[in-house]
């Protein structure tokens, strides 16, 4: 069925290697999001699965078939592009039916499939319109409709929501998710937006520099990032990182950072004297008590919560509070970390210690 297996996948452009031997398993019906900063190779990986980029070495399998050398049309995939890529000279119906027409499918069958897809997406009134007469969200739906009618084994989405405004993006996010629950088709979705990744994915693949940093369920990545890159990439506002050193004080191990003594989680077993990066998420900080002291630089109320930026030894530490807080810029304040929610990374390698 629609499982995708990637083994030792590499990609070179001339002498430059952009994909460094990836291994990835995508189960049938899974919604996988590839996420990472620009240039991390996520789009290249997607385009290699689609067949728009050649594979330099390694294997891509869809179902039982090795598809490395198959043309895109024979891979049984459908792709939704960032700019929708609708054919401007064809009506919505013709856009959606084009792939089927190319397959030589019978007209009546094409028509019934298009009508069915249009019903799912709420496009029925627009079937005879041209793309230029549609709004951004409608075009996005047509692009999805074009994928749905083919009934492929795998859907590929290449940053499909990045051209929509914020409100529509949230709405389409939900629609795509619902569509997936309904069709249960394996989906590979590329985005640079970690919120999109967190909210939509069954499984997130965090990439950087042509390598996979971590693969896991959204909350797994959030709760146990394997290194500082994943830790800072996932979550918004991102995790606070403080450089420090493990010390022992009165028989208790703590992290000393810029004069502040920070608590360690009980489970942590790191040797004294180790140089570490102390990571703490904004919501794991409480105001007052022992911890990072500084002056309040900015207070950003969002309504549901308030972000307080504290300047500690020239570094900005962000705290997030569900309650209304009455801090003002310039106030002296201390953020106390919750020891059980601390992430500890090796300072030089960035790898998770505890």
């Amino acid at each position, binding site marked *: 069925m629609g499982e995708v297996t990637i083994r030792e996948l590499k990609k070179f452009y001339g002498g430059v290697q952009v994909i460094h031997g990836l291994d990835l398993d995508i189960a049938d019906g899974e919604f996988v999001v590839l996420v990472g900063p620009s240039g991390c190779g996520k789009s290249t990986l997607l385009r290699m699965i689609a067949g728009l980029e050649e594979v330099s070495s390694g294997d891509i399998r869809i179902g039982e078939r090795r598809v490395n050398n198959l043309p895109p049309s024979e891979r049984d*995939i459908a792709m939704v592009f960032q700019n929708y890529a609708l054919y401007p000279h064809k009506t919505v119906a013709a856009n959606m039916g084009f792939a089927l027409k*190319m*397959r030589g499918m019978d007209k009546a069958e094409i028509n019934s499939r298009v009508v069915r897809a249009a019903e799912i997406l709420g496009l029925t009134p627009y079937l005879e319109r041209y793309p230029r007469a549609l709004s951004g969200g409608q075009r996005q739906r047509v692009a999805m409709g074009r994928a749905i009618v083919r009934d492929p084994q795998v859907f590929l989405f290449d940053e499909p929501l990045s051209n929509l405004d914020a409100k529509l993006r949230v709405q389409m996010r939900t629609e795509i998710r619902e569509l997936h629950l309904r069709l249960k088709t394996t989906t590979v979705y590329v985005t640079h937006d970690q919120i999109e990744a967190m909210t939509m994915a069954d499984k997130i693949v965090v990439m950087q520099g042509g390598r996979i940093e971590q693969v896991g369920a959204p909350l797994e990545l959030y709760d146990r990032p394997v290194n500082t890159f994943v830790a800072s990439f996932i979550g918004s506002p991102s995790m606070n990182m403080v450089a420090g050193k493990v010390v022992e004080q009165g028989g208790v191990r703590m992290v000393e950072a810029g004069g502040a003594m920070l608590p360690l989680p009980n489970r942590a077993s790191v040797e004294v004297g180790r140089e570490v990066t102390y990571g703490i998420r904004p919501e794991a900080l409480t105001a007052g008590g022992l911890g990072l002291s500084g002056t309040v630089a900015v207070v950003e109320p969002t309504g549901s919560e308030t972000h307080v930026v504290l300047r500690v030894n020239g570094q900005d530490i962000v705290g997030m509070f569900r309650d209304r807080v009455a801090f003002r810029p310039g106030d002296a304040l201390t953020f106390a970390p919750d020891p059980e929610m601390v992430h500890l990374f090796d300072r030089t390698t960035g790898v998770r210690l505890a």
Partner: protein
Amino acid sequence: MNPALQAVITIGLGVGGCLVYFYGSNLFLDKVLYPPRGPNAGRNINRANMIRPWLFLFPAIVLLGLYLAYPVVATLWLSLNKQVGTGSEFVGFANYAQMMSEEKFWESMQNNMVWLVVVPAMSTAFGLLAAQLTDRIKWGNIAKSLIFMPMAISFVGASVIWKLVYDSRDAAVAQIGALNAVWMKFEGGIWSVLFLRVLPVVLLLAFAAAVAWVAWGMVRVVLQSDRAVGGLEKLARGLGALVGLWLVYVALSWAFGAVRADLPYGVPQQFLTIPYWNNFFLMAVLIWIQTGFAMVILSAALRGVPEDTIEAAIIDGANPFQVFFKIKVPQIMGTIVVVWTTITITVLKVFDIVLAMTNGQFQTQVLANYMYDKLFRAGDWGVGSASAMVIMLLVMPILVWNVYNARKEMR
């Protein structure tokens, strides 16, 4: 005075005059006529801004009026008058009547129509082909420069070049004309049969089949009525199908002729004197020139086709031909129409090529050369002006359509 110096002074005066005019007139408007101060400052600014565009347009309007609009009106007037002694006399449409009664005029009209169909079609088709083929190859830019180069040659220069291609010498000496040099290689053997009988027949049959298919496509919609077809569209489709049938008939009869024809092997041909065919030899010159133009514009248009629509089509399973004809070409249709009509206008005015190669003899006359004949050789400016008006009337609708399409493209 040295002519070069005169030229420099003229340029200086011209450019300086323009500067003085634009600067001075704007200064006058802002400082004297409607100064933006005083109690009416707001009103004055608005008025000055309403006048300003006309200050800039004024020189162009005057010059165009003087050199374009006036001659049109004057030509119209001349075409309604007749030369009597040193004066002239109003004769109404007598000049037009006389022109219509001349066989040479109808020959010109007919030839112009053939030019009108063949040259824009071939130039655009070749240009599109060249644009697509040169787009993806490394030496594409070199190929493009070579194809574009004829654009830099004047029509007369091109005619001289092609006259040499069509040149004919006595059979005993070497041929300097490329076409005759090739022709003399054919002696009636197997290759002659292959190239001069089989190949033309195959091409003509292919053409006939293609046209028949298109014609069938036109009527099919009406016959298998799975959608409502309006009366006017029915008529247009019927006419199109009839034209298609006629073309099929012509192609088939030519194919038959190619099989039957008694070819004069070993005799150098005077290509420019073979009636009917010589028209096509003249058209080749203009096609050779205009293909470069079409290629450059269409190449730019092809690059403007969004890459992701092409990728989407590839994923949808379209092969390269389908990507080209169903995705790329429809998206640049507006540009194709503009290129087509632009070449059409050039073709309607074609003059130099005919003048330089045959001067309208051997049934190759065209309207522009006919006009030149009447005006400057026969000195009959009545009929000459009448033919000029005919050319203008023919160009006008295409020009309007071209401008309309070009503006639509720019939006």
